[in-house]
């Protein structure tokens, strides 16, 4: 292991530049020289942006925030894979030691009708928020909770719930899917709540509500390619989609829709 060996590499990046939602946009090639292999991919873009500012060109816009792989802001296709394709890694955690001098790197925004481009690599992912607002919650007003240990939850169930809850809502699943489908995201949210006793009372209503919202947002359908699973930076399994598929059938065939009943306010 090189202890502090800062190898420097020279690369060429083809970055999607698009002024605004209406601009057709195009890939623009930039040379970035002397990038330390210890830098992260986003730090490489920082370096590129400093170069652009020095030349009087507008820097590349890209979403990023925590830069430690948890906020889910970063969202870019790197050489045809969401977040660059390293297993369980977001773009901000991707490091330049994976690249070599002379590499040509293509950087593009997520592509989906439900995620319109705002500028350059920045897309609008509010479709995800709308899905959650439609039902991705437990109805439990603050103050009404029983003691946390009143509901015993077997460790295996809590672990399963956690694995699905690890979703950071980045949208890599949508970006990776040949159909631009959001099923892994939506199903992960459901699986999280449905492995817990707290999620059971609203289970079927929740399933049909979020799926309806997902469809309305214009995401594509799932044809079981599992690109989403391969691209997920949190390693969420396709199993969650199977769970959702089953619950959706139950919701359609068994569940009496809540809207047909008086609702005491939720």
């Amino acid at each position, binding site marked *: *292991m*090189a*202890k*502090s060996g800062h190898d420097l590499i020279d690369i060429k990046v083809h970055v999607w530049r698009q002024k*605004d939602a209406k601009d057709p946009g195009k890939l623009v090639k930039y040379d970035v020289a002397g*990038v*330390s292999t*210890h830098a*992260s991919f986003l730090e490489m873009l*920082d*370096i590129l942006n*400093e170069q652009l*500012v*020095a030349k*009087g060109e*507008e*820097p590349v816009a890209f*979403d*990023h*925030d*925590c*830069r*430690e792989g*948890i*906020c*889910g*802001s970063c969202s870019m296709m790197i050489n045809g894979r969401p977040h660059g394709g390293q297993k*369980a890694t977001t773009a901000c955690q*991707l*490091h330049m030691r994976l690249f070599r001098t002379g590499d040509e790197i293509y950087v593009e925004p997520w592509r989906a009708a439900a995620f319109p481009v*705002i*500028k350059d690599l920045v897309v*609008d992912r*509010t479709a995800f*928020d709308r899905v*959650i*607002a*439609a*039902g*991705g*919650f*437990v*109805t*439990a007003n*603050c*103050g009404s*909770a029983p003691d*946390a*240990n009143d509901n*015993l*939850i*077997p*460790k295996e169930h*809590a*672990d399963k*719930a*956690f694995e699905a*809850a690890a979703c950071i*809502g980045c949208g890599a699943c949508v970006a990776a899917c040949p159909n631009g489908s959001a099923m892994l995201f939506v199903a992960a949210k459901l699986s999280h*709540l449905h492995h817990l006793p707290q999620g059971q009372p609203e289970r079927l209503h929740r399933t049909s509500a979020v799926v309806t919202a997902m469809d309305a947002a214009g995401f594509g359908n799932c044809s079981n390619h599992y690109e989403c699973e391969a691209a997920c930076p949190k390693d969420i399994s396709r199993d969650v989609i199977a769970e959702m598929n089953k619950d959706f059938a139950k919701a359609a065939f068994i569940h009496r829709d809540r809207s047909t009943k008086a609702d005491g306010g939720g």
Partner: protein
Amino acid sequence: MKLDARIPGGPIEQKWQNAKFDLKLVNPANKRKYKVIVVGSGLAGGAAASTLAELGYDVACFCFQDSPRRAHSIAAQGGINAAKNYQNDGDSIHRLFYDTVKGGDFRAREANVHRLAEVSVDIIDQCAAMGVPFAREYGGTLANRSFGGAQVSRTFYARGQTGQQLLLGVYAALSRQIGAGRVTMFARTEMLDVVLNDAGAAVGIVVRDLVTGKIESHAAHAVVLATGGYGNAFYLSTNAKGCNVTATYRAYKKGAGFANPCYTQIHPTCIPVSGDYQSKLTLMSESLRNDGRVWVPMSTTDIDKEPAKIGDEARDYFLERKYPSYGNLSPRDIASRAAKEQCDDGRGVGPGNRGVYLDFRDAINRDGEDKVREKYGNLFDMYERITGENPYKRPMRIYPAVHYTMGGLWVDYHLQTTIPGLFCLGEANFSDHGANRLGASALMQGLADGYFIIPYTLGNYLAGVDAKGLADPKSAAFTSVEAEVKGGIDKLLAIKGKRSADSFHKELGTVMWEECGMARSKESLTRALEKIPKLREEFWSNLSVLGGRDSFNQSLEKAGRVADFLEFGELLVKDALVREESCGGHFRVEHQEAGEAKRDDDKFCHAAVWEYKGTDAAPVRNEEPLVFENVKLATRSYK
């Protein structure tokens, strides 16, 4: 500046109960007539927005991120404290209260801290009810772990992602209210100023739509700021890139007192800086210190040796040596300074010799690699991705980094700032952690403020406000602030210099870290007070902001935030200079005893509250005396 903390009467255990009874209520049917603005959607802001909406208020919530789910609370790793005493190990509300006051080096307000400890137990219940997947024992009960500064196991956690799981719970509750139409959410919208009415009460905010660039006004009966801390004044910190001081600093400029800006927390276990391109530092959760042992080589000759080849006799487990009873779980400020000491002594490891080892060899030998993987797997993976080194085989290298800021807008017991109608929650306020925050207490405070405190205290304020008196966003009060904000933006765009905002931010960060970091002295602080104004001057003459103001423009966003940091940094340094004592995260080299921080309770047992007096006038320092009736002021010892 009048600083009435409005602490309720009665013994400390009854203060909050008494207050809750005495606080005025708003009739359920009238609540919807009151409009409340919440800025920030993290644990404090999101919880406040959703809970206020559940109560029936008409809420508008703002965040600069693309979704409320991305607020920086999400990055908290280790856990959340609560005095549940599920482990039967002697915990109690009083002990959590005591630990927090002591951990804060006796610089927090007793009544607030006690209330925090009281509601901590409700937080866990509420979060579990929301479906937060906390770690469980095989029998189905909640699991706990230990954190620094405590000798009981009271930290609830969800692997290394407790913050994300709690935030998702808050976000779910918030989303439910958004779906129900009770909260209007404004994402990618940045607050640029607060608006006061003629009586000096907060009646709205001015924001910039970050997608269209449009400047807009929003009116409300009350404004709640939950906009996080200012750790990014140091540029390199564990904070997210977007974290900024703008909302609180602009509120300060409008008249809100800013308390204790010099209280900054340096977290001992972060991945060290690797080069000048570094854009942020990554925390390795404090929970790692449950099993990891911190050491450096005994001798400077060993620092470049492979760590595995250094025998136990040649290792200095300095935390265990210096603080035998707390050992590796010493509080953050103490562990950080100890690490710095060893590196200053020339025994640091890694690039630039600014690093110490955090070694899991013994835990792996004792429990097996699988057990260690189960507990910390995601953190180990993260470490490996960033450094390219395998922490199962080679000890982690860690070094302290700026992590949290205890200072913030001054608030009274009701969480109201010195501006009536302007409330401040979470890390953005100053109230609960004194001069140092204990691990796993930030999440606790954010949720306490948002879920269980503001819903009561805000009602009390609104009960005294006429519901029909909603300010008009087209009135002069708003348009004049809008004009100010637009003027500020145009000024930034008009400089047309050469340097990016980022480059100024980096330079400011270097000054702050070098002169006002883990060890501060009169000389260093004085130097900083010379350098910062010069840097600010260059900023205003040589800044380059490309792109327009009426479109999505990250450079412009950044420039505005850096402009505020360049002013705020100076305030932070001033506060550090005046506070001639060492306490918690604030360490003045002049004030120490055998290497340990030395408080001066006679002169500084107070919160320092800064009052803005105008661009060209020096800010005025006010004091809120701190009275300790339930905890004896003592020298903090973890030996």
